[in-house]
């Protein structure tokens, strides 16, 4: 199996997957505790429209996806605040409109082909070096911004009103978290595809939260589960000729199942 790491494609997949897994777990913890777990789903569908637009205009699809996801996340947040639209309603709307737009653009540009499918289902094993670099840099930015604002994020997630009363600019930080989520979703898209990226963001974090007794523990555990699922998923995908995206997600679900049962058994 060590020989696997001699292959260039596997090295690239491993590197990108490793780092993206960290970003996903980190954001996932906050999203779940903020009761915002579905936003990854919504943003992924918007990202799909971005990818289709990118293919249509012959502009780097990943960049278009990033742009549209960030814009959509911002609008969803503003709708929640200004129009009092519930988060899940806004997500439902954006998610379906995003996908509809993507289908329209894909049909118009006749790009319902391998390219689009690789974005939908993920093709981490075919990731290029430039994309690996892009992913790692972006992950560093995401992780750095979360670490720097860690205590503020934790406080406002736990008790928003008291956090605000203590001087924390919760609205501004909401915006930051929203944008970071959009970025992480687009990153995750590279690993498991648009259709499953929400799972990569949510499941490892949910698994970690089953048994963690402190916030730090939750983060460490979720990150380990995320990384393990990705790496093991990649290995299995290659060795057994399975799709990487579903292997990764199913493994993370297995971890969740085990920890869920463990928690129930512990009482």
């Amino acid at each position, binding site marked *: 199996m060590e020989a696997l790491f001699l292959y260039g494609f596997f090295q690239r997949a491993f590197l990108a997957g490793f780092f993206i897994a960290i970003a996903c777990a980190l954001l996932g913890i906050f999203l779940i*505790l903020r009761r915002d777990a579905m936003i990854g789903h919504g943003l992924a569908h918007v990202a799909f429209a971005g990818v289709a637009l990118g293919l249509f205009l012959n502009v780097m699809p990943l960049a278009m996806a990033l742009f549209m996801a960030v814009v959509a996340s911002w609008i969803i947040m503003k709708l929640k605040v200004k129009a009092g639209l519930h988060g899940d309603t806004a997500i439902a709307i954006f998610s379906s409109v995003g996908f509809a737009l993507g289908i329209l653009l894909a049909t118009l540009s006749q790009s319902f082909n391998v390219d689009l499918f690789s974005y939908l289902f993920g093709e981490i094993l075919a990731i290029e070096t430039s994309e690996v670099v892009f992913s790692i840099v972006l992950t560093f930015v995401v992780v750095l911004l979360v*670490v*720097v*604002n*860690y*205590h*503020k994020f*934790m*406080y406002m*997630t*736990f*008790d*928003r*009103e*008291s*956090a*605000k*009363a*203590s*001087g*924390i600019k919760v609205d501004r930080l909401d915006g930051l978290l929203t944008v970071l989520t959009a970025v992480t979703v687009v990153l995750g898209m590279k690993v498991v595809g648009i259709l499953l990226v929400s799972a990569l963001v949510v499941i490892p974090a949910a698994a970690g*939260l089953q048994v*963690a*007794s*402190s*916030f730090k*523990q*939750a983060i460490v555990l979720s990150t380990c589960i995320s990384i393990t699922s990705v790496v093991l998923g990649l290995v299995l995908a290659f060795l057994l000729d399975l799709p990487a995206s579903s292997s990764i997600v199913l493994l993370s679900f297995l971890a969740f199942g085990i920890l869920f049962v463990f928690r129930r058994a512990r009482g």
Partner: protein
Amino acid sequence: MDFVAAEQELLIEIQKVTYSYGYGDVLKDVSFPINSKDFLAIIGPNGSGKTTLLKIILGLLKPRLGKVKIMGKTIEEFADWKKIGYVPQKATHIDSLFPVSVKEVVAMGIQSSRRFQRRTREEDSCISRALQQVGMEEYKSRRIGNLSAGQQQRVFIARALANHPKILMLDEPTTGVDAQTQEHFYDMLHRLNREEGITIVLITHEVGIINKHVAQVACLNQTLVYHGSHDEFCRSDEFKRMLADGHHLVSHHH
């Protein structure tokens, strides 16, 4: 129970504050001062604007008219929010699934202004001391979700105390709590007020709670109906009217 006025400084000035929620004014032209070392109860019937006023003081809401000054600065200018400890109403919030210990909750108040992880030893001792002040030291490693409501409330007070606040503002801190716990609770607040010089401002709709510890009373019912000493309030017409209206009475036998 009269504090010497000369030792006191003006901490908070509420000036002609008016606030509406869209269906009408919930606060109208409310003005009164809060001085250091006050032990003030803001009372009034449900819907009288007490919590709204508190939120305006804390900068969580903006008044339609009027303004609030904290330690001489307007809300926009004021930045030393740690000096004001806020203990929100019990009904709000806490997610029992949130994986966080009592100690971590208290630490949140201190750490949130800093970027990176490590707590200093001094901060750790602030946290311990705050927990001791509220009698929750032995629970410091317990998950917050596993405590009773009264215990959680005390942890939130510790969180506010860890920053050595000048004022502690509590919103309905003892609603739904049994009489004995209430007793201990007010004894604790009294200690903080007398021994540490912390100004206490608490909101309650229970008229009878304004017991032997409360020194000042502000009675709200959209407008400021009364502001002054507790003793005088008990002799006043407003108090008699509130009793006659059947406002909730909690008696304290000493």
